[in-house]
């Protein structure tokens, strides 16, 4: 069979729209037909196979091509001031897209299957699966789209499906509050993104990525300045801050853990929150150096702060939530320091091992009858061996231990920050990265030891614990196998040898003008001609060299730090050489700061929430007293005026009318006398009148 581009496009479109069908059918008929969740699940298995085929065909047959399929949706013609706007809808298939589609469908599929067991007995069972279908559809839309308009639409669609799924058990107050919080906090970021899109569209009159990139590479900038470009980059990044739960909008993600655990795995760990990073990868060509620096700073803060919080949390899902924010911070920081490929790599590996961790915690929570506090767990290793082993593998991956996927990708990011440091002299990002790597290993093994090792602390619950059923264990095994390194690179110590990075995912052509780039990202045209005519070097050779040099020191440092972190966790919690409570007492201020999540919620409550309430009080006062006063005042003025006109009507106008009537009456009274009804008298009047007239006109 001849493989054409249109075949790939068709496969991609079927993959995109099947979950939508699943959503609609399951939502409409789910109440009556109990087995309908199998329909949704089989759709997921189908789209997983389709996306695997899609990725295979794309990566083997069209390795270096970007396939764009679009159609004109709306032609606005010549709008005054905006020239011609045509809105095109369409999909774009490049290597990043197909790999991301495959990752999304894999995680979505295993989460669907896991949910069959986890959600068993829920009264809105089918509703849950239909929401998952809606989410899968929206997420695939984000991944496949080739324009900002569809990106924004699907962006909001994942927002609403996230809202629906966080608030799935909405009968509980905290749950519905968390759903609202997630939705509202996301809105804040989306406003920035929306403004960014508006600026781009009014400048370039198109929504398509490729056309915008082309225009910018020609030197047409928003507002005509490089600052305009930076502004657009930062505004678009605001959307990613909200969706990827970056500092300072990260507060919604830990609360989102109120939702069902598989949802946390799918949406709030593996896919949706990664949409922000994916969006940054998409718009990478137009991010100027200044914008990238801001992105890197936000990413570093988001990597560091939540990592310190995760160290002291007792809720197993909260630990994982903060770890997710921290890892997303890693990816954002990697984008910021120009390590494009490693950011994407970490996005993919993180999706698998973090989904595995969440599903593992879901398995534990389910077995403990919805107990999430790690202080009440312990010793589960013997009762739940499959969960334990898979959780351990995923934790090793998250901590960045060699032979796991996380080691490769995290090492890549650290190499990127290290190279950035050596090229620009800015070592803060590398330092943050290493510190977070240590913290990550520590808090993950703290969680493992508290949950699985030691003696059971809640005997009653421990007695009833048993290993999860097949539908719940199988996804864990699949995901933990995907967390091993050999899938990505045959050499477990060098991420650059991975086929994923060296062959498939390459930094895109940068559209930003040379003067607005980082120095090391400037294109060196002469070098291109010397080395290779075909291939264009996007980053300078100094960067390649710096990456190369950074490789070994980073590798050793990060692995050592990860082992140290694990060791530290064992010292504190397994062997108890140092009592963690005493340590906490000694470092009380630090401990409290971390335990209370750096008081972000309190600060936001005191400033934004209380501020909003205060503002609304002021506005309420203004409304009540001033606006209402004006309204009432004008009303009473009108009343007096109308009373006056009423009087005028009654007396003057009616007086005239009545007077006329009265006069007519009087006249009538007079003339009535002549109306005798007697023919002869009429005749007499006639004759006399004629005589008088004759006398007058003689």
């Amino acid at each position, binding site marked *: 069979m001849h493989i054409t581009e249109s075949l790939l496009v068709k496969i991609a479109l079927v993959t995109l729209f099947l979950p939508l069908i699943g959503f609609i059918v399951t939502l409409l008929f789910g109440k009556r037909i109990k087995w309908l969740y199998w329909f949704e699940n089989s759709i997921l298995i189908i789209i997983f196979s389709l996306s695997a085929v899609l990725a295979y065909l794309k990566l083997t047959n069209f390795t270096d091509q970007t396939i764009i399929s679009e159609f004109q949706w709306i032609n606005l013609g010549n709008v005054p001031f905006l020239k011609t706007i045509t809105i095109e809808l369409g999909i774009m298939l490049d290597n990043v897209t197909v790999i991301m589609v495959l990752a999304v469908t894999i995680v979505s599929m295993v989460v669907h299957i896991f949910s069959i067991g986890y959600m068993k007995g829920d009264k809105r069972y089918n509703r849950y699966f239909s929401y998952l279908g809606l989410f899968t559809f929206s997420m695939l839309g984000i991944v496949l789209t080739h324009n900002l308009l569809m990106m924004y639409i699907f962006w909001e669609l994942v927002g609403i499906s996230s809202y629906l799924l966080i608030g799935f058990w909405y009968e509980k107050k905290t749950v519905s509050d968390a759903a609202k919080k997630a939705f509202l906090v996301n809105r804040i970021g989306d406003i920035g993104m929306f403004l960014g899109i508006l600026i781009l569209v009014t400048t370039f009159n198109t929504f398509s990525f490729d056309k915008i990139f082309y225009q910018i590479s020609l030197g047409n900038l928003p507002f005509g300045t490089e600052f305009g470009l930076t502004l657009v980059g930062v505004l678009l990044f605001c959307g990613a801050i909200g969706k990827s739960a970056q500092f300072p909008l990260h507060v919604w993600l830990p609360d989102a853990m109120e939702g069902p655990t598989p949802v946390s795995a799918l949406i709030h760990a593996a896919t949706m929150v990664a949409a922000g990073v994916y969006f940054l990868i998409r718009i990478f060509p137009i991010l100027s150096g200044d914008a990238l620096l801001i992105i890197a700073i936000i990413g570093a803060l988001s990597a560091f702060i939540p990592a310190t919080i995760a160290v002291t949390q007792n809720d197993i899902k909260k630990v994982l939530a903060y770890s997710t924010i921290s890892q997303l911070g890693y990816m954002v920081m990697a984008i910021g320091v120009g390590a494009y490929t490693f950011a994407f790599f970490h996005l993919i590996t993180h999706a698998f091992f973090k989904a595995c961790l969440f599903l593992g915690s879901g398995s534990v929570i389910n077995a403990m009858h919805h107990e999430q506090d790690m202080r009440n767990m312990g010793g589960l290793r013997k009762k739940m061996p499959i969960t334990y082993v898979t959780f351990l593998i995923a934790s090793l991956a998250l901590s960045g231990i060699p032979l796991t996927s996380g080691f490769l990708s995290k090492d890549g990011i650290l190499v990127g920050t290290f190279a950035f440091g050596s090229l620009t002299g800015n070592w803060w990002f590398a330092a943050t990265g290493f510190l977070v790597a240590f913290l990550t290993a520590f808090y993950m093994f703290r969680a493992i030891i508290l949950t699985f090792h030691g003696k059971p602390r809640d005997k009653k619950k421990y007695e009833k614990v048993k290993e999860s059923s097949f539908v719940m264990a199988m996804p864990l095994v699949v995901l933990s196998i995907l967390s091993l390194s050999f899938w990505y690179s045959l050499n477990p110590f060098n991420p650059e040898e991975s086929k994923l990075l060296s062959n498939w995912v390459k930094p895109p052509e940068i559209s930003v003008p040379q003067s607005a780039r980082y120095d090391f990202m400037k294109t060196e045209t002469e070098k291109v001609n010397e080395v290779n005519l075909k291939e264009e070097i996007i980053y300078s050779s100094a960067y390649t060299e710096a990456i190369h040099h950074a490789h070994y020191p980073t590798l050793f440092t990060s692995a050592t730090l990860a082992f140290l972190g694990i060791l530290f966790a064992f010292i504190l919690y397994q062997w108890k050489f140092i009592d963690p409570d005493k340590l906490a007492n000694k470092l009380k201020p630090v401990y409290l700061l971390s335990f209370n999540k750096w008081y972000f919620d309190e600060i936001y409550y005191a400033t934004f929430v209380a501020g909003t309430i205060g503002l609304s009080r002021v506005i309420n006062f203004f409304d009540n007293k001033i606006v209402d006063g004006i309204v009432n005042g004008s009303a009473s003025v009108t009343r007096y005026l109308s009373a006056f006109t009423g009087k005028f009507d009654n007396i003057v106008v009616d007086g005239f009318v009545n007077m006329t009537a009265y006069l007519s009456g009087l006249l009538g009274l007079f003339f009535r006398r002549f109306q005798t009804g*007697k*023919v*002869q008298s009429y005749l007499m009047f006639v004759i006399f009148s004629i005589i008088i007239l004759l006398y007058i006109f003689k």
Partner: protein
Amino acid sequence: MIHIGLNHYLIVSSLLFSLGIFAVITRKNAIMVLMGIELILNSANINFVAFARYGNFGLTGQLTALFVIILAAAEAAIAMAIVLNIYKMFTNINVDEIDTLKD
């Protein structure tokens, strides 16, 4: 000997007219009123004939007089029919008492 001219005819006709009017106005009986009307018409006839005789109109005046006589006959017939109907309605032909036009 008095020469009889146009003036004499006019005087006779105006006397006749006045008598007719007088009859129409004063008589209570509807028949009498009708007879007064006949007098008025005939005074007009005298006028027509007299003017025709003394003026230079040819026979127009006489012809008109003949028309008036025919008209009077027709009018008398219709008027008598009306009077009969009035009588049927009111059992009375006293013009004074028939004053429902007032209402």
